[in-house]
């Protein structure tokens, strides 16, 4: 799809403090919907889903003192657009020591868009083990789904045009916390 140019106008949707509040809310929702996050594993999708998963685990620990195992799940080799682009470098896949069999896996990603990354993640999970159920937590849902996929926990819904893009930056990866809408603005 067409990416907006780098110098396209952009607007801040969430600032650092907003982003922290949103993460706190998702952590609370997870605790609520999973009766205290028992039997639960958080798997972040690289790149930015991984620090988000760690933040959620830290907040859950701060709220209720529960330690939720955190891991990462790289989906590069499962992408459906693998051979339409130049070869990509692989991200890290690290499963928590207890594995995922029989547990509730919550996939964590920064932006939910077409749903294709989530489909790839579900395929990757399938090769790794058999969770009892799989849920999805995203910081931003920008719409325009191309597959029948929805999120269980959404930080913020941002209505977008296809020509726009949503850029999430996180301190761990980019040096600052921010969500920005780029391009297509009046």
């Amino acid at each position, binding site marked *: 799809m067409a990416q907006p140019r780098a110098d396209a106008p952009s607007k801040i949707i969430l600032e650092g403090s907003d982003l922290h509040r949103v993460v706190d809310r998702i952590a609370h929702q997870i605790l609520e919907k999973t009766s205290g996050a028992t039997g639960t594993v958080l798997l972040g999708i690289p790149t930015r889903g991984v620090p988000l998963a760690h933040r959620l685990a830290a907040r859950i620990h701060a709220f209720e003192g529960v330690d939720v195992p955190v891991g990462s799940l790289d989906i590069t080799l499962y992408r459906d657009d*693998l051979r339409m682009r130049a070869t990509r470098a692989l991200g890290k896949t690290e499963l928590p020591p207890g594995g995922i069999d029989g547990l509730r896996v919550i996939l964590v990603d920064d932006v939910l868009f077409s749903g294709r990354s989530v489909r790839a993640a579900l395929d990757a999970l399938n090769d790794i083990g058999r969770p009892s159920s799989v849920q999805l937590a995203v910081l931003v849902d920008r719409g325009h789904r191309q597959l029948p996929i929805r999120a269980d926990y959404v930080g913020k819904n941002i209505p977008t045009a296809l020509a726009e893009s949503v850029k999430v930056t996180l301190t761990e990866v980019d040096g600052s916390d921010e969500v920005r809408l780029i391009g297509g603005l009046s």
Partner: protein
Amino acid sequence: MIRHLRSAADLDAADATLILDTAGEMASLTGGREVKKLPALRGRTVVNLFYEDSTRTRISFEAAAKRLSADVINFSAKGSSVSKGESLKDTALTLQAMGADAVVIRHPASGAPHRLAEWVDGSVVNAGDGTHEHPTQALLDAYTMRSRMGRLDGLRVAIVGDVLHSRVARSNVLLLTTLGAQVTLVGPPTLIPLDVAAALSEKTQVSYDLDAVVPDSDVVMMLRVQSERMQDSYFPSAREYSRRYGLDVARLRKMPEHAIVMHPGPMNRGMEIAPEVADSPRSTIVEQVANGVSVRMAVLYLLLGGK
């Protein structure tokens, strides 16, 4: 990323590091999981074209391609039209017509992969050509060194034996110097002509005295002495070669505490390497074979995975 892997010289430091990093991910992806298969090369065809005998390299490439879900066709010159006199070019055109996305070739003639790359559209991977190169062996050696020693930059590597005829040595010198290691070639003068050493890399040192090199090496890589060389009088006798250039227990003790012993296999136990040394915990020989699959998965993925 490059399209063919014909020589270790095709790789700059960035590409080589990308392959080693990807190999690390491949190893962690296939280790200890339910389904040891990844869908990245589904629907792609990899042909193993082997004009020379090989066990570990062919099996290693086959396992790598299959773990990435590619279809694998094994072709060995014995029992094929090659024994009826078909030329490499005609075989290449046949493979081309069958739609091979990659051809992994081992050939007794140096330079065969370079010719092949002119005739087929797919990627060509050199799995050993004559006395020229064996780049994936060098990559798996570098991967093994990096995972054991933690780095390659500044690492002191001694490559010992028949450098003149060794494609493993040639590829290793090219790759290791690209990645910043200091390579010393060790062996009898008949098997390390100075012009060969200089042509490989100006940064490479040459020594004819193994005892002098061993205490200052982080890695000692032994090369196989090919039995056919013994008839060609490159050295007086097997016994003399073994005494001067074989790695025995006494020499192992002179190596630094952290140093490792490598061998590309197949070994001549008691000739270039003593059995006690080959089986010691400091030898990485079995590890090298296991790493070979991960490294070849990385190479196939990076050459074929994208557009």
